[in-house]
């Protein structure tokens, strides 16, 4: 039984997992949907009441029924590298590939129905609350007056993109930023704006969850850190990521979150305050983990490989892959 990894060639983080799968002699096929019709191929036959499908990439051929798991890591846009790419061909290729794979009995990390929903930050906040995770007071609004009133109730705010996406014309990054006390909220009317109470943090937490395994890392905030430097991805702090223990209540809540989200993998970001409370910020369903493993030595890639290599449960996946979460 084969592990199918959907990702690009340049994804060296996926390599970290492939190394472990190779060491365990688990067959792997790595396919970038962007290569469909130009290096990657597919075929599926629905005849006499049964389905037989095959995928090919890099000179390897695998039967869809022979897949034990599918890791949707960093797949390219389907058919993006075809001889004559088009939006229509992309849709055709996406429907053919993901439609065929949805019918297989493999375990998913993460299921293509669960993943898009899990990307919605407002939904993440709702699910985190429901799962028992502390969530900083947050407002998402296009009403300037609502923003002003929120700022009166919570004077120390940050702003961040609702989607987590960044504008590309021209390419810009929108880090989580501290809102100036005298900010004019008039421009809130021109786009949904996510305002959140700033957590005076003493550390950033990245909690990587693979199935039922929790691997937390903590990056302490220096005592002399600039309070305006909110976003750890842009911070200049040289403090290292170190392994951390997960408080039992957080562990239980995170497992509830992933079960409800029907995710097998999630990278949670928390801000730890002076009381030691972990405030939920977001859960990236395909968050990077390589940098954490490199710094902490935590066996994240090996844990992913073990999850992917787990024997396939017989029978069909339920809608949204309830069984994608390891028991």
């Amino acid at each position, binding site marked *: 039984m084969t592990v199918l990894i959907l990702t690009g*060639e*340049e994804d*060296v*983080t996926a*390599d*970290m997992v*492939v*190394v472990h799968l190779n060491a365990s002699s688990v067959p*792997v*096929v*790595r396919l970038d949907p962007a290569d469909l019709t130009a290096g990657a191929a597919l075929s599926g036959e629905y005849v006499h009441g049964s389905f037989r499908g095959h995928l090919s990439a*890099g*000179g390897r051929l695998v039967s869809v029924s022979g897949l034990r798991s599918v890791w949707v890591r*960093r797949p*390219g*846009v389907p058919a993006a590298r075809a001889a004559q790419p088009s939006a229509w061909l992309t849709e055709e290729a996406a429907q053919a590939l993901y439609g065929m794979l949805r019918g297989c009995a493999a375990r998913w990390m993460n299921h293509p129905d669960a993943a898009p929903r899990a*990307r919605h930050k407002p939904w993440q906040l709702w699910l985190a609350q429901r799962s028992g995770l502390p969530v900083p007071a947050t407002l998402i609004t296009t009403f300037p007056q609502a*923003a002003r009133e929120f700022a009166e109730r919570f004077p120390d705010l940050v*702003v*961040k*993109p609702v*989607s*987590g*996406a*960044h*504008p*590309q014309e*021209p*390419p*810009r*990054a*929108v*880090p989580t*930023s501290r809102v100036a006390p005298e900010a004019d*909220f008039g*421009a*809130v009317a*021109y*786009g*949904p*704006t*996510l305002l959140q109470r700033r957590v005076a943090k003493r550390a950033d937490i*990245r909690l990587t969850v693979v199935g039922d395994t929790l691997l937390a890392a903590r990056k302490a905030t220096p005592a002399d850190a600039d309070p305006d430097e909110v*976003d750890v*991805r*842009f911070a200049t702090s040289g403090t290292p990521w170190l392994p951390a223990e997960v408080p039992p209540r957080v562990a239980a809540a995170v497992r509830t979150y992933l079960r409800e989200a029907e995710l097998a993998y999630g*990278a949670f970001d928390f801000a730890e305050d002076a009381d030691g409370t972990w405030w939920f910020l977001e859960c*990236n*369903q*395909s*968050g*990077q*983990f*390589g*940098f954490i*493993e*490199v*710094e902490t030595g935590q066996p994240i*890639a090996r844990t992913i490989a073990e999850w992917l290599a787990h024997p396939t449960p017989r029978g069909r996946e339920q809608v949204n892959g309830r069984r994608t979460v390891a028991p």
Partner: protein
Amino acid sequence: MQPFALNYARPAVEREVTTPYVYDSGLQLNVTVDGRIAASDHALLRELGTTTSTAGSKTHFDD
């Protein structure tokens, strides 16, 4: 008419990193010019930052 959040935007830093490894379709792994598996070289990965959580990705918003 600019949305409020874009008041806090900054130019994206496009990292022009020349990775000292290439994909080997036989191995399904990236390999350095001297034949080592790039993913096993943590010092190299740390130096290049290719496994790092970033912001401003054109193609992925999950980091």
